């Protein structure tokens, strides 16, 4: 079952913050976040494996609430380079062989203006 992302689109000015949510109706083992610019390959941002764990690098971080079966991606002090479509991918298999078999959400389009 495809995870649901919200919002579908968000427009920001440089320096503003944004939160993108990802919810699943199934129990999750892992949540993966990717960013894709138009016509380019999706780029890995981070993976979260445990409930409540928060990860981050630079000004992008994420949390994973295993109980609520949802994850949130936090972008602080956004930069022009953050523009793109953000996808969450959910993994349901605890075995290593299915690590890359993900069910992606429909995406959230983020636009950052100067």
């Amino acid at each position: 079952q495809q995870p649901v992302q919200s919002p579908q689109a968000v427009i920001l000015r440089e320096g503003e913050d944004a939160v993108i949510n990802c919810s699943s109706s199934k129990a999750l083992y892992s949540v993966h976040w990717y960013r894709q610019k138009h016509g380019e390959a999706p780029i890995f941002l981070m993976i979260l494996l445990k409930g409540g764990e928060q990860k981050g690098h630079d000004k992008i971080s994420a949390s994973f609430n295993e109980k609520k079966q949802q994850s949130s991606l936090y972008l602080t002090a956004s930069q022009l380079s953050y523009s793109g479509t953000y996808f969450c991918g959910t993994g349901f298999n605890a075995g290593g062989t299915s690590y890359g078999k993900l069910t992606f959400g429909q995406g959230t389009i983020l636009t950052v203006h100067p």
Partner: protein
Amino acid sequence: GAGVSQSPRYKVAKRGQDVALRCDPISGHVSLFWYQQALGQGPEFLTYFQNEAQLDKSGLPSDRFFAERPEGSVSTLKIQRTQQEDSAVYLCASSLGKGAQNTGELFFGEGSRLTVL
């Protein structure tokens, strides 16, 4: 190059033609995945290889779709008798596979955009 390479980048086929899409993964990556991405949607899983073994093909939409990775490196996705609904971007991704070095990161190629007329 250092990344995942896919060819052709763009392919236009007439309905009923067969097409073959190639993926050159990152050297040493054990796992290889094919995803299909329709316009405005997230990627959808098609199939997974570990080395030359196709371990999961549950996402292939019909028996017109066939994938192989005979020597555990380059992979080809073949679509026979193409239909208009096959029009999409086909993404290939590779990863290190099992083991402590595997962070779970998928390295995607830029994709092959297939248009069926």
